[in-house]
Structures are given as structure tokens and as C-alpha cells.
């Protein structure tokens, strides 16, 4: 009974198809029961599920970190749902179209009761293939880009409404913001439920398994400063862990709310095991991972997704952590 309940966070711009996706997850014959936290009642056409309305209350923590905000209503609702554990297998949280995913994600790291009883499984972002480029350019482009930047899984929805050339351009735009989350193309949010649930995207050991080729991406470094972008770095020399940790603290403090996500797998000097970490904004978590195999090439890999990142400074900072 001490196992933590997995929680999937569903984000996406207004009209991208979140509700369609949610209805799909709830009706597919996968034999699982979900508790669903929605931002608006009435949109969900399902009766036989636990559906709870949220109030989107964003609270600041008094811990001196201004960007550390949590969703007070989620703390309350997750606590209430966990009293009924045994009646469902997983929890899905739907956010509003303009919601910043950060307070939702941070709730899972900042509140002791939420942390004890639940675990964030993945942030799933639904993107409208026809309108996303336009959206990224309009006045809410910032929110739309942050939702993509935060994602562990991206559903590129309404592909039937876009041409192949448009889809290729959309995928390129998404990749510029988030180079790492798998993109699933879909019509009417038709995606296999396995692609969305039980991803373990925040599970440090799973990061190792799920990303054997963590950084094999096209490094198409556009300096696109107003929106989120992703950068990755690689070093083949061992890292001094203490120096790395204090540098990461500095980075997250300096970049502040601009830093959305970070992930890394490190070769630490003097250790025969990998060190794995991930961060949501300024909340960083790390742990020792599986050992390096005999003769395996040891490399350290690091990924940042955020706004206003300076890749040269990050590269120099990372290199200064070489032991």
C-alpha cells in the first residue's frame, strides 16, 4: 500500500484536442480505472469514472524562491483522492489551455504529502498541427511554447488537417523547443494509451532505460530567444559531482523561471556508476544509476529546455565541471 500512485499531466493549447484525448483514454478498453482532475466540468462525457473539478489556485511557497509556485487545489484534491486508493489505478490531471505547466509539475516535488502518495509519471502535451505555428507567433506564444518545452510526450494532433509539408515544418518547430520528447502524430487524438501512460519520465532509473540514445538529435541551434529552446551538451571526460551540483544550482538561480526542464546522465570521477538527474525549474533531483559496463564509453550528457538560455555560457560552465 506504500506504492505511489502515478499521475499524468495533460496540457495543450485551447482547442488542441485535450478533451478528445481524455475521453479516448477513458473509453478505450485497457481495463484501467482513472481518477481525473479536470479544469471544467461538463466536457467529459464519462459517468463511470472519478471526475473532480479543479480551481487552479497557484500558491507561492514561502521558501524564498519566487518562482517556486505550486497548485494548492491539486494538493487538496490529490490528498482527498488518495483516501480512496484502491478504487483506481492512476490519476490524470487536465490543465487549462493557457496554464503554465510549471506549478503543476512543481507540486509533485514541493509538497511532502503529494510526494509520499503520488508520483508524476509524465507531462503529455497536445499540439494542434494546423494552428501551432500561428499560435507560437501570437500573444500567447509564450504559454504555447512552454507547454511544448515541458512535455515528456507530445501528441501532434489533427494531422488530417495539415499537409505533409506543414507537418514537417510543425515537427521542426516543436523540435526546436523540445528536442527530446517523442512526437506521436494523431488524428482526432487517436494515440495508443501505452504511449501516454506509465512513461516513468521522472523516474531517474527509467530515464536511463528510456533514453539509451539520449542525445542523438539534430543539433539545429536556432537562437530563438523569446521562446523556449532546447540545448544539449556532451563531455567525454569525468565530472566533479560537487562542482557540477553547485553549478546547476547557480544556473537554475540565474535563469530562474526561464529554465523549464533539465536532464542529465553523468560520468562522475571516481564512481563506476552513472549519476542521473532531472530538474523542473529550480527543483533538482539526482541519484546514482546503473554501473558502466566493462569497456563501455563513458560520456556525460546534459539537456536544458528553457527561455533565454545562453548555449555558449552553459557549455563553458559544463566544461568547468570536468574533474
Amino acid at each position, binding site marked *: 500500500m506504500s506504492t505511489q500512485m502515478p499521475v499524468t499531466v495533460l496540457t495543450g493549447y485551447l482547442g488542441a484536442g485535450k478533451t478528445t484525448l481524455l475521453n479516448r483514454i477513458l473509453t478505450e478498453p485497457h481495463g484501467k480505472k482513472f481518477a481525473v482532475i479536470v479544469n471544467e466540468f461538463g466536457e467529459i462525457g464519462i459517468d463511470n469514472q472519478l471526475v473532480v*473539478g479543479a480551481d487552479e489556485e497557484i500558491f507561492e511557497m514561502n521558501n524564498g524562491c519566487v518562482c517556486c509556485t505550486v497548485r494548492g487545489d491539486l494538493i*487538496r484534491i490529490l490528498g482527498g483522492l488518495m483516501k480512496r*486508493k484502491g478504487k483506481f489505478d492512476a490519476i490524470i490531471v487536465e490543465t487549462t489551455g493557457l496554464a503554465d505547466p510549471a506549478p503543476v509539475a512543481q507540486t509533485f516535488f514541493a509538497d511532502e504529502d503529494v510526494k509520499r502518495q503520488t508520483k508524476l509519471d509524465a507531462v503529455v502535451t497536445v499540439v494542434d498541427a494546423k494552428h501551432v505555428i500561428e499560435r507560437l507567433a501570437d500573444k500567447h506564444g509564450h504559454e504555447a511554447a512552454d507547454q511544448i518545452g515541458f512535455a515528456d510526450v507530445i501528441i501532434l494532433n489533427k494531422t488530417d488537417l495539415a499537409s505533409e509539408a506543414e507537418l514537417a515544418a510543425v515537427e521542426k518547430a516543436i523540435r526546436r523547443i523540445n528536442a527530446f520528447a517523442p512526437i506521436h502524430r494523431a488524428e482526432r487524438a487517436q494515440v495508443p494509451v501505452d504511449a501516454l501512460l506509465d512513461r516513468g519520465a521522472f523516474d531517474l532509473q527509467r530515464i536511463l532505460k528510456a533514453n539509451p540514445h539520449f542525445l542523438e538529435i539534430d543539433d539545429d541551434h536556432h537562437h530563438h530567444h523569446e521562446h523556449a529552446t532546447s540545448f544539449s551538451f556532451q563531455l567525454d571526460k569525468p565530472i566533479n559531482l560537487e562542482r557540477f551540483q553547485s553549478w546547476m544550482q547557480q544556473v537554475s538561480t540565474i535563469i530562474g523561471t526561464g529554465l523549464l526542464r533539465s536532464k542529465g546522465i553523468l560520468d562522475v570521477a571516481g564512481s563506476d556508476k552513472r549519476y542521473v538527474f532531472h530538474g523542473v525549474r529550480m527543483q533538482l533531483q539526482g541519484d546514482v544509476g546503473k554501473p558502466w559496463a566493462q569497456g563501455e564509453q563513458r560520456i556525460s550528457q546534459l539537456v536544458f529546455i528553457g527561455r533565454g538560455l545562453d548555449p555558449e555560457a552553459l557549455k563553458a560552465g559544463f566544461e568547468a565541471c570536468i574533474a
Partner: protein
Amino acid sequence: MATLREPLVEHFGKSWQAEATVVAAAVDRASRRAAFAFGDGQIRLHDLESGEIASLAAHGDGAPLCLAQDVGREGFLSGGDDGRLVRIDAKGEASEVLKVQGKWIEHVASHAEAGLVALGVAKQAILLGPKGERRLDHPSSVGGLAFAPQGKRLAVAHYGGVSLWWTASEGSAKVLPWKGSHVAVSYSPDGKHVMTGMQDGELHGWRLADGQDMRMSGYPAKPLSLDWVGKPPYLASSGSEAIILWPFTGKDGPMGKPPLEIGQGGGALVTMVAAHPTISVVAAGFENGLVIVADVVSRRTITAKNPGEGRISALIWSPDGRFLLIGSEEGYTGIFDQKASVAVT
């Protein structure tokens, strides 16, 4: 108490094991019957004299989220995730008092002399009394409710502070502001202080006469359980590896004074505290399932329940001080009978 055999519940009480989480426990004002509310929807009633047990599903397919003694001598009030407030009467029969569509009733409190019931429903507190129903709005969700000792005021904790409402007259609330999320609230027995437990692992308080703030920080976890023990009282609080007791003596109360810490050593956090209604004794439940009973004057402790069976999620004395009710997240329930212990020792 030193000659008592430990653990108390094993020697002088009874325990039961259920599947579902214990959400709350209560004893009616007559100390005749006890109730445990479970996460699977069941409410179990124990006749404390005869030992007879009855179960009812007061919230249909839903589950109770809070439980309190009713305004009268007997009976209970239970609020649920079905949006219903249910009264369980002296015969153990359930009837609906009120239904709020699509919302959860998360907090319930009652006051016998004033004949009032207060509910926490999302951002509203609902006050039910002889004069009817009032809905009190707040800027954010209700974190906790507490009546003033005479029932003249109701304190409602929320994000950004506490709202104090006069219960007998209309009008807006007096807001006691303090930045942050307030998730528990309690009135001092003399009605002079309002104290809250905060999301950030600290207690906050106000001296009502002049609005003077009090701040007690350093809790490793949220102090969600607060109670007042002894005379002059200590404020007992959960959220640390011992029972943290703040002395409310003199003009300045606990300000500038260190707290008393009792029951530390196990390394586990205290999750629930419950003050004995008549003597200077407080019970504390821990996250590892341990329950102790501590004498605040001698600072001696005895074990009421050994560790195990899950985190303690409910702990309360009967109003006459004879029975101690214990419930855990993993479905353990226990009742210690002090009279049985006296008969033995």
C-alpha cells in the same frame, strides 16, 4: 499511569483491521458512541458501553472526507466527496442535511452551545444554524475551520491568512493576513489567539487584541494537527519528530520561549496530536504507526500502540476522557479504554 502495561490498546482496549484508509474518527458529545470514517465509503459505529458495532455507507458510492460530533448530545456529521453532509442520528441512521452539486465537503465543525455547524466546501464556508444557512466566500479554498470557544466567531484558514466571521450577525470578515497557504486553524481555549499550520512547515498565530503576529518555524513537515493541552495551555502540534508544545503563559504567550518537545527518539514524524479533555495529557500518533500518551507535566510517555499498521491518520479522545480512538492510513482502528486500565492497576 507508570504502572500501566504497554501498549495500552493491547492490554486495555480492542483493535480491528480493515482494508481502507481511516479518514477520521469522532466520539459523540455524550461519549456513548464512537465513529470511524473510511476511504471506501464505510462509516463504522461503536457503542462504547456494549461494544456493539454497526456499519453504514453514508455516502453511497462516494467517500467521507470529514467527520465531527453533531451539535446535540448524540450523533455525528459526515461530509463527503459526493457533496453531501450526512447526519448520523442516535439510532445510527443516516439522513442528508445538505447537498452541494459537484463539490467536495472537506471540513466540518460543530458548536453545541451556539447550535452551529460549519462546512468547508472549496472556497466557501457554509454556516448552518438556528437562523438558517449562510455562505461565506473566501479568495481561495478553505484550509481549515475553527469555532471560537463561545461560538461567537468562526475562523476560516485559506491562502493569505485567516478570515474571522461573526456567527450571529451578517457582515464581512475580519482578515488576519499572512503570506502563504494556511492549512489548519485553531482557537486558543481563552479565545485570545488564533493559530494556523502552514504549507511551508511553520505555525503562524495572531494575538487578537492587537493583531500581533507570531511565527514558529522549523517544522520538517506541515503541522496539520493542532490541539490545546493543560492549564495554562500548551499548543501541541504535529509535523516534527516529537510533540512540539508551545507554552501560552504570560502576556506574550510563546514569543521568545522555546517549545517543549516530548516523545522524540524514534525518528518518525508526528502526524496527529490529541489533547485529553480534562488532564494535562496529550496523545500523539506517528507516521510509523506508533501512538504514545504523554504527560505534559512529568514529561513521561507510555506507548498506546506499537509501530506498524501504517501512518496514524486519526486520533481523538472521547469528551469524558475515558476512550482514545486511533486510526491509520492502512485501515487499523483501535480503542483504548482508560477505565479498563484503572480496574487492572
